[in-house]
């Protein structure tokens, strides 16, 4: 049951084959959308765990930009899932950038020496990327938790945040690394906000929506998961792979099952 259950999320994210040679997400950009009722952070935790521990001695590196929670929070959660973030951090496989207190004011570009916060952040990312050996650059995964707080840090200049994200997307095509972002769908329900979200969705290769059940709260089923993988085949045609299942989050693992099929 466990190996099959892992496959449901892995299939949805395109993580079917984890080998030493291929980069885990294949240079894709993943967008996770959640809401107040149901948090999508468990997808991030599962992903980090799979990236860091699934293949022993792999060269996967996770660069985590944390806007929402401090290191101790993730450390505790992933320890229960079976991944020691402290040890990975020491080995250089998990790089944690604590952005909780950091303001990214977007000042005038022409100011002497006054690089805006997001610009400096991107420079930091490229520094990390260049520090890796050339062959391993495609094994880097950048994880951002979460984008709405990045907007708050940038004092509301969503345009700059979008630019930052687009720059990160170029890294996926230039170097083959992957990008995983988390955002809150219910914030962008108004007409103006919708543009921001649509742009992020458009740029993503894998779109994941985590929602509460339409029927309300339940102790056995914590929500439903909708995944959409968009791949462009060689001849330019679009291949969309949709996944839809429900989940139940536990301390040590997450159970995935099709609606109505609780094992």
């Amino acid at each position, binding site marked *: 049951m466990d190996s099959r259950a892992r496959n449901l999320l892995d299939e949805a994210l395109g993580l079917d084959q984890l080998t030493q040679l291929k980069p885990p997400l294949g240079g894709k950009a993943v967008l996770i959308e959640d809401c107040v009722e149901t948090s999508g952070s468990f997808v991030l935790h599962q992903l980090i765990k799979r990236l860091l521990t699934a293949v022993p001695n792999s060269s996967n590196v996770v660069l985590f930009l944390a806007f929402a929670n401090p290191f101790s929070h993730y450390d505790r*959660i992933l320890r229960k899932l079976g991944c020691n973030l402290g040890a990975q951090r020491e080995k250089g496989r998990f790089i944690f950038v604590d952005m909780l207190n950091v303001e990214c004011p977007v000042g005038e570009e022409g100011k002497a020496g006054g690089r805006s916060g997001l610009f400096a952040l991107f420079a930091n990312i490229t520094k990390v990327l260049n520090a890796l050996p050339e062959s391993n650059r495609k094994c880097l995964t950048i994880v951002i938790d979460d984008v709405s707080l990045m907007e708050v840090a940038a004092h509301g200049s969503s345009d700059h945040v979008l630019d930052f994200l687009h720059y990160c997307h170029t890294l996926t095509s230039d170097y083959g690394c992957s990008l995983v972002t988390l955002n809150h769908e219910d914030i962008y*329900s108004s007409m103006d906000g919708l543009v921001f979200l649509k742009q992020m969705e458009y740029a993503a290769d894998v779109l994941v929506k985590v929602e509460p059940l339409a029927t309300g709260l339940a102790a056995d089923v914590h929500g439903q998961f909708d995944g959409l993988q968009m791949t462009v085949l060689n001849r330019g045609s679009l291949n969309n792979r949709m996944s839809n299942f429900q989940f139940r989050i536990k301390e040590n693992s997450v159970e995935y099952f099709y609606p109505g099929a609780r094992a």
Partner: protein
Amino acid sequence: MAATKTRTSSFSRNLPAASSAQSPEIKCGPNGTFLVSSGIPDLDKTLGGGIPLGSLVMVMEDSEAPHHMLLLRNFMSQGLVHKQPLLYASPSKDPRGFLGTLPSPSSPKDDKSRSHDAEQEKGLRIAWQYKKYFGENQSNLDGQRGMILFRFIVLCEWEMLSFIRSLKSTVRSAIAVAIITFPSSLVSATFCKRWQHLADCLVSVKAIPDEDKELAKLLTGYQDIVGFLNIHRVPRINTQVPAVLEATTLSIKLQKRRYLVLECLNQAPVDGSSGSSYGTSGSCSGASSKSGSLDF
């Protein structure tokens, strides 16, 4: 008592050394968090023991009635009774007035007035100069357990968000709890959602009309109910497992005009002629008796 207890496993939980020196008002919670009481025992029980230290509690006000002040009063008096450092910020012209309305069942009058004076100074300062005070705030809170309470009028929305974000990160690193009340009706929908996402613990308070015959028919004890408390989010620090509550809507009752009691909603026996049996949205029919606390 300890001598007669048999050890069932060879492993014992390694509690941090600080727990032995802790004050009684801080309990150990799950996942390495420490819980502080909110001042309302029923709310503590619903939240799983209390409010975790380092969390941000947001109370969405009802613009029609000041029931959130009831919650605030309880939070504050809880902190005062345990002599925790408190910061109170309010947009009202006279924060002292609020302090005077705090219930104080046990602390002697002299102590209360002394600690009030200290709080008033801080309170007045912060009401008008949020950012300037925030720098001092940092040094005050380091190494101390404390509670911060804010009541907000809304200034520029993005500045407010960034203030709350910095407050949240400060509170996480210091050993404190911050409680903010804000009028959700005055903020645009998108910003309301952003505030909600920022909160670790999100509750909303709603007043009920005095003479609503429909509600009176549906609920028992309608005359005593002052309002409803909705719990939208329970703090999930250091864990990914969501908390599924049995009841997310509780009724607020004031007993003897002083003691705040939260109860599960009890439905009145359904009259055969009325059509609706589950009328009130979000209400749960609890089998609990009138008094909120059940001892198992």
